[in-house]
């Protein structure tokens, strides 16, 4: 008789001979397994809740600067303040000096403008919080994209409608590749085009 055969036979349900069953083990493990399962579900829920309701894509800024008022209502071009975007890899934020260029005369009585004026008087930089931040291993030159007439809104979203800027773009690799494909960028899919 083949040994394998007898082994299989012993596991048949109708067989009287003593066999191995996992049912008793499950019975013992049931409460811990359930607790573990619910716990893991809780982790997933907590993670989801955090990323959905507290995504950090709309950070609070040191001064409640409104792009809606500046870029939307008053139609100030993006490159007026972010003037380095066409010259440098870094778009940069305007110097406090640039803010005061207008606000020495404009709306000087508003409390927020007074705060800007205080920064300027103290020669202190305003510690703006970055909304769009790429990892350090990614090279994104603003200059090339601005010179290629890519609208700022392509990545940054309709900033001119936002009071507090929020990040809508995923800023993940897929977005770069899709756009490069769409515009048939030369070497646009090459690793070294974006990665340092």
């Amino acid at each position, binding site marked *: 008789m083949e040994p394998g055969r007898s082994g299989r036979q012993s596991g048949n349900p109708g067989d009287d001979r003593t066999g191995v069953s996992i049912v008793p083990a499950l019975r013992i493990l049931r409460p811990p397994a359930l607790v573990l399962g*619910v716990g893991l579900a809780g982790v997933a829920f907590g993670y989801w809740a955090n990323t959905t309701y507290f995504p950090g894509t709309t950070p609070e800024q040191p001064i409640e600067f409104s792009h809606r008022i500046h870029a939307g209502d008053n139609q100030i071009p993006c490159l007026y303040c972010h003037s380095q975007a066409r010259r440098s890899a870094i778009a*940069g934020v305007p110097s406090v000096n640039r803010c005061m260029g207008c606000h020495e005369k404009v709306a000087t009585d508003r409390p927020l403008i007074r705060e800007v004026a205080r920064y300027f008087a103290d020669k202190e930089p305003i510690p703006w*919080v970055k909304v769009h931040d790429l990892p350090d291993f990614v090279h994104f030159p603003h200059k090339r994209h601005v010179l290629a007439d890519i609208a700022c809104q392509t990545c940054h979203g309709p900033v001119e409608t936002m009071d507090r800027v929020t990040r809508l773009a995923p800023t993940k690799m897929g977005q770069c590749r899709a756009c490069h494909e769409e515009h048939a960028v030369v070497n646009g899919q090459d690793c070294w085009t974006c990665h340092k």
Partner: protein
Amino acid sequence: MGTIDRRDFLKLVGAGGVGAAAGFVLAEAIKHPVEHLIPYPVPPEEFSPGVAAWYNTVCSMCPAGCGISVRTLEGRAKKIEGNPSHPVNQGRLCALGQAGLQVLYNPDRLTGPLMRTGARGAGPFVQTTWDDGIAELAGRLNELRADGRSDRVSFLTAGVRGHLAALLELLMAELPGARLLQYDFDHPHTLLAANERFFGAGSLPYYDLENARYVLSFGADYLGGWLSPVHHALGFGRSRQGRSGARGRFVQVEPRMSLSGAAADEWIPARPGTEGFLALGIARQLVAEGGYEGADRDAWAAALDGHTADAVAAQTGVPAATIRRLAGDFAGTRPSLALGGGATGGHTNGVDALVAVNALNYLAGNVGRPGGVLFNPPPAFGPRARAAHASYRDMLALAEDARRGRIEILVVSDTNPVFTLPAAAGFAEALAAIPYIVSLSSFMDETTGLADRVLPSHTYLESWGDDSPEPGVGFTVGAIAQPVVAPLYDTRSKGDILLGIARALGAGEDFPWANMEDYLKAGWREVYGRAPIPAEAGGFEAFWISVLRAGVWGENGRRESGSPAVEARVIDAVGVAPPEFAGSSDEFPFVLHPYLSHALRDGRGANLPWMQELPDPMTSVWYGSWVELNPATAERLGLREGDVVDVESAHGKIGVPVYVFPAIMPDVVAMPIGQGHAGYGRYASRRGANPIQLLAPLTEPVTGGLASSATRVRLVPTGRRVSLVKQGGESRQLGRGIVRTTGAAAVTGPGARLASIPIKVEST
């Protein structure tokens, strides 16, 4: 199943709650950290974040004076390159120059003025203020001056040129009798003295390697550490490959193969100290058989009489046939050029030997010609008097005066004599007798460690200054050094410290300049006034900006110099005294050949990690010291690579591992200079050993400079072994055919020109 009791329910609720909290925290923890965008309140002119700004300035890592371009981003220096417009380095830069960033960002930099609180040399330093530091120094200087004892003041600095040197000179005029000493271990005293004696030229000439077709170098490691290595490397490359149809031939005479020896077509070991005889032997061949036709031929023939090829062969160990061949090639391959320096100038007959090298150039007609020796115009700015560099004898005199209590204030700047003077000089002990020592160094080096006050100066990348390179390039060149970054710490530029001292001495009227920049501009206004610049060029401000932008200024690019006639008494005096060595050859069988490390030079680069991890080009060893031994010597002594031996001279001993090096004479041992610091920061200290400490206090009689190649040593095995840190574990080819070799017959057969290794030279 199916029912959940109360206890299970509570468990599940608890698990779910804890899980959710954990998930929330997890999501929060892996989120991208918040970053800030910090704008300038008021941005500097021409500033763009993310766009590099390049500033031209002058390298100060060695005395060559190369021009550099520093790449800065957002006000931080990121990279140093050679300035393509500067005629010395023409866009190239050596490794030490590249490592200048690590001087700027060195974690061991002194960040503010310091005052010693405990015992000298041990006591902790505490931070103090600039006003306090300068007021105390000036107060003491004033006190001595009021008593008419300002001759008890000494300023000891590394070699300085340009307007900083002129400012030092002005300050010295305020302190009658005070001594200004410039000391560098590697200053070419003997070369300057030999040129002075032979040509009557007080400055270093321009050696036109680029246009030379045959270069005979006596000990001058022109590709390594000699004078202006980057410029020489350019000339070497162009001589070899820059002309179609002509390839420069290079011959190197030295006891231990240097980088230049390795790059040469022929390497000739002559017994240490006899290189001058070899030059005389070749010179005699030029006069007797090479067809020298000058009017002073008879005088030369008389002066060189007796230096026949056979006599010189007996003195130097170089075969007579080789001497005749060298003379024939030297006279027959024009333009040719003879260089002398390094260890050849580091013997007790150094000046004689280098005069003999100059005689070779004269006899072959290389003086004042392209491809030969050309003379430099005097610098366009700088001190009125040519500052004499302190020789070893001058430093001994300073130490002696200190011991006798004749020095009351010593100001040390950028030079580290405690490290670069032999232990036999007793300099550290002499410093103990000086009541008040102030150091202006940026680092806590060995000498600064003995100071009472430290007034740390800026690094060169933060300072204003200027330079006219020495040796020059054959025409007038000057360059302005401008700060490329704002000062990182509470330090001051040397010029500003000197101006501060002058003002505190009450000499404000003679020093009307607000700061070093102001003084420099005033000086360059004079340069502008003298230079033939058309008025419509835009005035001084435009000139100043253009010089800053270009990083260099010169009057014309033509090299032209005459060939001075050599006086009869100079010809009569040509001759080389036999070299003297410290120690008997019985007791100390080896001549110690210390050489400047390519990376660390005289030790100044030892605190730079990049320089520590740069392998020596000849041995590939790094991170330490070693002693080089000929394989035959090593075999005779039963030593292998890594065996630690005590290198002992009559003046000290140091323990270093052996490196077996085939390209060194059997009775010579070589050690690189630069390691063995006791202080000088975390990267330099407690690494390797300092061969300068072994040197005997033997001087070259004309210059009083230290005869640094004239010390005899013995090797005492310690029985310990270490493994040398080096690249490549195997020095044999193991049948891989990497380098083609030739049989002994080809080496020794008739017409053979290859130097055989190991070298067979009878020991002296």
